[in-house]
């Protein structure tokens, strides 16, 4: 026990905050991520993450918490993407080449200016790769409230999101305001990306969004179970990541903990690889299961 939980783990304030906030954000990211994967919008998630980098680095320059930078730029980018219809393939190509390039160029400038003005190299690292153990206590309530809002949005929209990802025409014919639902979902995605960026960094934030969701969709067959599985995987990655990062203080080079983002992302990717390489039940097996279910139902009756 002692070798897993190094001394002071359970009494450390930053560890408590990291685990609490990390859990809420991991659940939100995982659930939002399931819809991102089903709707085929991982690209949008990644674009939002790139643009959030610019916001986070800009926030440091003007002296506000980086979360507000991530959020403002992410939400602005989501609104812009909705307007130009970046979901369409051609619009997407143009956006990749022009908008994301411009945003990252600006991020390079902001990060350079950050390091010049604050005389610490930690800023670039915090923006790009997160800062779970040094979360500013005053932003914690805002993080939790934002996470719950994003989560509530996708839960309320769950069925219409699934229907419109199947066919926007069917959804529209049944009275779903497809455009407004898509815009609301993109906003929830932007918030979720901003939150992940706070804990594991803007460039890695899609790992927490897409990784657990993609893994869960390989393991669980129904959307509800996929959401629960994804949340479980996300939370497990955060907790194990935090424990390992805390322990790594005693690993070489001694006295310098490894970044928690490294552990979280590695665990998420490892989980996906295990799910990917696992033999999947074939259609024949599924059909056989269906016959078994039917027989059981019949014999029970």
């Amino acid at each position, binding site marked *: 026990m002692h070798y897993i939980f190094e001394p002071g783990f359970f009494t450390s304030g930053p560890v408590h905050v990291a685990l609490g906030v990390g859990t809420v954000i991991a659940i939100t990211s995982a659930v939002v991520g399931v819809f991102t*994967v*089903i709707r*085929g919008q991982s690209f949008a998630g990644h674009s939002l993450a790139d643009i959030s980098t610019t916001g986070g680095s800009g926030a440091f320059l003007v002296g506000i918490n980086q979360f507000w930078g991530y959020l403002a730029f992410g939400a602005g980018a989501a609104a812009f993407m909705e307007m130009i219809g970046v979901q369409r393939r051609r619009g997407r190509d143009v956006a990749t080449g022009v908008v994301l390039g411009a945003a990252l160029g600006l991020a390079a400038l902001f990060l350079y200016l950050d390091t010049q003005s604050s005389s610490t190299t930690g800023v670039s690292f915090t923006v790009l790769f997160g800062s779970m153990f040094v979360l500013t206590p005053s932003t914690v309530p805002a993080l939790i409230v934002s996470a719950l809002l994003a989560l509530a949005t996708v*839960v*309320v*929209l*769950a*069925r*219409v999101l*699934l*229907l419109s990802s*199947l*066919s926007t*025409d*069917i*959804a*529209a*014919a*049944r*009275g*779903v305001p497809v455009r407004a639902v898509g815009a609301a979902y993109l906003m929830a995605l932007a918030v979720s990306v901003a939150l992940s960026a706070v804990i594991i960094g803007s460039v890695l934030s899609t790992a927490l969004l897409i990784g657990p969701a993609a893994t869960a*969709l390989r393991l669980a*067959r*129904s*959307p*509800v179970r*996929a959401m629960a599985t994804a949340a479980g995987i996300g939370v497990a990655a955060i907790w194990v990541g935090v424990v390992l990062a805390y322990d790594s203080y005693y690993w070489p080079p001694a006295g310098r903990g490894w970044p928690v983002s490294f552990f979280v992302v590695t665990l998420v990717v490892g989980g996906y690889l295990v799910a990917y390489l696992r033999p999947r039940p074939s*259609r024949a097996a*599924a*059909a056989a*299961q*269906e016959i078994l279910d039917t027989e059981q139902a019949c014999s029970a009756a």
Partner: protein
Amino acid sequence: MTLPPVDELVRLDGIGVRLGGREILRDVSLTIRPGEFTGLIGPNGAGKTTLLRVILGLQQVTTGSVLINGAPRAPRDATIGYVPQKLAIEPDMPLRVRDVVSLGLDGHKFGFRLPSRARREAVSDMLTAVGAQQYADARVGELSGGEQQRVMIAHALISRPRLLLLDEPLANLDISSEQGIVSVLGRLARAEGIAVLLSAHDMNPLMPVMDRIVYVAAGRVAVGSTEEVVQPQVLSHLYGRHVDVIRVHGRILVVAAAEDDYGDDAEALDAGSEHARVVT
């Protein structure tokens, strides 16, 4: 309070649709009554999809009126089920067949719902009715085109609509899947009294089940029984050029003489055979 009996599910009165300055439909009038199987037949680009979109309320009309159940269409009208053209379900779409069918019940509603036994049984019954029960737990992206059509028909029918619209459901299907879909639709229309309006560029596979034909060409329609509509003079008037109707081996081919001076070269207007070319 009871509503007066309605014997017209859909009534189009002299509708016209212009899109970007182009006239897509002109002076189209037709009615659809409960239990009727109607084939919406015509070459590609004739306006079939636009006509279906008008009935669904997805396309506004420039002129004329559209009545559903005797009233202007309500935004959440459950009278009509819809299977769109070219579903483009990607192979990695992770939803299962039973999830897709379940979305037909309440996919348009906000809020969250936990799975229930009653719903599971309703979905299984619907899948059995369209002959898709053996792949209920497969991912919809893994299915063939014909299997996906059956699933989408189940999706459209599970909310118990009185009219089912299908846009080119037979396109790109092999002959046995094509016959399978037509017989499922014919059976459901008879057994459940559901009206079916199905668009196709080839009328021949529908002959066993079709009660009525709506022939669309050049944005105009001719409505009636196959014998009334598929006549050289009717179709020539519709196309605005000379058209022949050839009945051969129990199949009907609609053939037009080429407009330029190629003498007796002819092109089929219905894709009645692999080699037929469609003239629009």
